């Protein structure tokens, strides 16, 4: 063994804290933008708080602030345990931690002030948001992000390769592929449509980018962590190894072929649009096997859903995953697209996937790990329960509400009513959406407060029992 500890707990803790801070920022931004839809935007006329810019803060703070930080925290916890080796370098890990925060802060700065200062300085195009959805990171710092992603990959690849003399556990398949995909995808999505391919072919690539960021970065890291945490917390092996194999390779094959489904009925060559539709239905069928695998695992000890909050979070996320996948396979059909494309239906879908699935998994992980990271039991279990129910009910409400809004909008447009009619008809849904969002927001505030109180509590008596029973590795 070398001198570094297997897992740098402080690093895991810092990543979780940073992730939660950005989650609060993202929720605040989402809440503000929701007020714009009710004609009650509080900062109307303030340039740097322009609602459009705030909308981009919402999505980017989620992707690069919340998800990236928290998924990495999980990986820093799990990968060394699974491979038996620490990550490549402690120095690089900490450097990356600060680099990620600097990148996110610069992105926020660029989105909010880039259009103003960049205009003054004549570098608006480079300093402000880049016109790639979910890749609005200003063009100026894209190179830094690429270097960071390469370092992240090396940092985690080292222990994985070192441990590869033993059979690799499922999680590590997802991590290995996921880190490679993320680098390739980031380079492709941020450079090719920006500098080489205009119009339809550029949109095809931008579509790949949006979808691959979900499917080849968030999803593999998320599933990789579930394959670790669920068996470890339940102290049971995953139900079927063969089914895990199908799930992984199905995802690896089909997911990259999905992206163009973001621009159906556009001027992108039709063969590409048809392929994307078929591949999307394909991926949903295959990931259903992963769902079955986890349900079968959790079923063996279903009582834990009421006794273990982390398992409840994770299971809820897995069920939401199944719901979004069923929805995917249906909404991608060209017939459905005629109505629901461009509407709030898709916004509802995105919220269920990003928060209801990956957000829930992360919150489950924090609920499990936080007491261990700060070495104190949770300040209040009641608050944690409230956190779960507020988030769960808020998310499902928002999902159903926006789905309905999408149908109303889509049919209103097709029926050729004046545009205003679709806006007026949406207002009640938007109002309801704001309430649902507020529920989620309040839930997270309670959770952050609970985290803070837990960390600040006096040290527990020396003889106190260990706070949770993690530790064993899955076989």
């Amino acid at each position: 063994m070398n001198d570094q500890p297997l897992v740098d707990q402080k690093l895991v803790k810092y990543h979780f804290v940073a992730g939660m801070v950005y989650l609060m920022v993202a929720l605040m931004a989402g809440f503000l933008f929701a007020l714009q839809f009710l004609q009650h935007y509080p900062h109307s006329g303030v340039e740097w708080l322009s609602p459009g810019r705030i909308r981009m803060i919402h999505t980017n703070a989620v992707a690069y602030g919340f998800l990236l930080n928290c998924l990495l925290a999980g990986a820093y916890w799990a990968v060394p345990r699974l491979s038996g080796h620490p990550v490549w370098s402690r120095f690089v890990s900490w450097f990356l931690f600060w680099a990620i925060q600097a990148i996110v802060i610069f992105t926020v700065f660029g989105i909010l002030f880039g259009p103003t200062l960049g205009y003054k300085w004549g570098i608006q195009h480079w300093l402000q948001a880049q016109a790639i959805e979910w890749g609005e990171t200003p063009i100026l710092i894209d190179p830094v992000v690429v270097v960071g992603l390469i370092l992240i990959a090396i940092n985690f690849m080292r222990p994985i390769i070192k441990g590869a003399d033993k059979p690799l556990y499922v999680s590590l398949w997802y991590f290995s592929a996921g880190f490679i995909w993320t680098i390739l995808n980031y380079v492709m999505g941020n450079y090719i449509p920006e500098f080489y391919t205009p119009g339809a072919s550029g949109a095809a690539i931008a579509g790949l980018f949006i979808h691959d960021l979900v499917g080849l970065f968030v999803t593999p890291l998320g599933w990789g962590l579930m394959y670790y945490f669920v068996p470890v917390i339940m102290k049971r092996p995953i139900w079927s190894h063969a089914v895990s194999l199908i799930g992984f390779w199905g995802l690896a094959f089909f997911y990259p072929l999905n992206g163009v489904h973001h621009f159906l009925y556009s001027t992108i060559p039709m063969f590409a649009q048809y392929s994307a539709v078929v591949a999307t239905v394909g991926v949903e069928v295959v990931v259903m096997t992963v769902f079955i695998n986890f349900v079968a695992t959790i079923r063996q000890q279903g009582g834990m859903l009421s006794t273990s909050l982390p398992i409840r979070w994770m299971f809820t996320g897995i069920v939401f995953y199944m719901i979004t996948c069923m929805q995917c396979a249906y909404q991608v059909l060209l017939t459905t697209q005629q109505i629901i494309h461009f509407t709030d239906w898709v916004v509802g879908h995105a919220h269920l996937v990003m928060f209801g699935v990956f957000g829930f998994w992360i919150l489950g992980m924090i609920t499990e790990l936080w007491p261990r990271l700060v070495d104190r039991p949770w300040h209040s279990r009641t608050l944690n329960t409230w956190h779960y129910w507020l988030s769960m009910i808020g998310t499902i409400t928002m999902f159903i509400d926006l789905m309905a809004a999408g149908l109303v909008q889509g049919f209103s447009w097709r029926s050729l009513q004046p545009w205003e009619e679709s806006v007026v008809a949406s207002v009640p849904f938007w109002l309801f959406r704001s309430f649902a969002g507020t529920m989620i927001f309040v839930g997270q505030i309670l959770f952050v407060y609970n985290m803070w109180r837990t960390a600040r509590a006096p040290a527990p008596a020396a003889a106190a029992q260990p706070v949770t029973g993690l530790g064993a590795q899955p076989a």
Partner: protein
Amino acid sequence: MKQTLLIERFGTIALVGGLGFFALSVVIFAVIPVALMKEVKMVTIEEISQHVLPDFRDLAERYPEQFKKYFGEASPKTYAEALRLGRDVYIGEACWHCHSQFIRPVSNEDLRFGRVSYAGEHQTELQMPPLFGTRRVGPDLIREAGRHANDWQAAHLWEPKDVVSTSVMPSFKWFFDKPADPNGVPQPNKRGLALITYLQWLGSWAEPLDPPILPELASAKPAEAAPAKAETKVEAAPARKPQPATTNPYE
């Protein structure tokens, strides 16, 4: 120890799953579409700006002082500058998160907005990166040219609710200079003028919705032929109509 299958090994996962499958997707969705589009040359901003639209000259007449101060003359050079800046403003304010820029051949979109989008019209430098958009809170803008006059656009950007009371579009007051006289009317500044120029350019190459199909939309124009056309338009729309022989660099 149980035997490791080939598909469980790190090398296979990294090379086949990580690199190989990704490369396959790039071939199908990037290389082939780019190859298919090879014949359609990308139109540069410089080429576009050779054909200065009347709306740009109208801005010069309507806001003479502002125009002189920020652009000087209405010329191909200043037109190019305005288009480029207008596009950047459109990106920075996230207009593209509430407005799309392509018309689909379904859901009666051709009746509402006009001619269905065709690949050539996006093959311009101003669509790099593409501004197709994925959400329509407001209407599509790829046929916006000429739909409203410049002063409508200015008033609308200042405070959309003043123009369309139900609008949820944000107001963009920073695209205007404060008038010296407290009772004066705010005038668009450089970014405002550029944005209006860009909006009036969007779709200037496609024939307008003429005659308008819907009675509501038709109020400004004679509506005699409208109902008959409505039947045929659905069929006819996707086919390309020959463009007037004037410079149409988009096809």
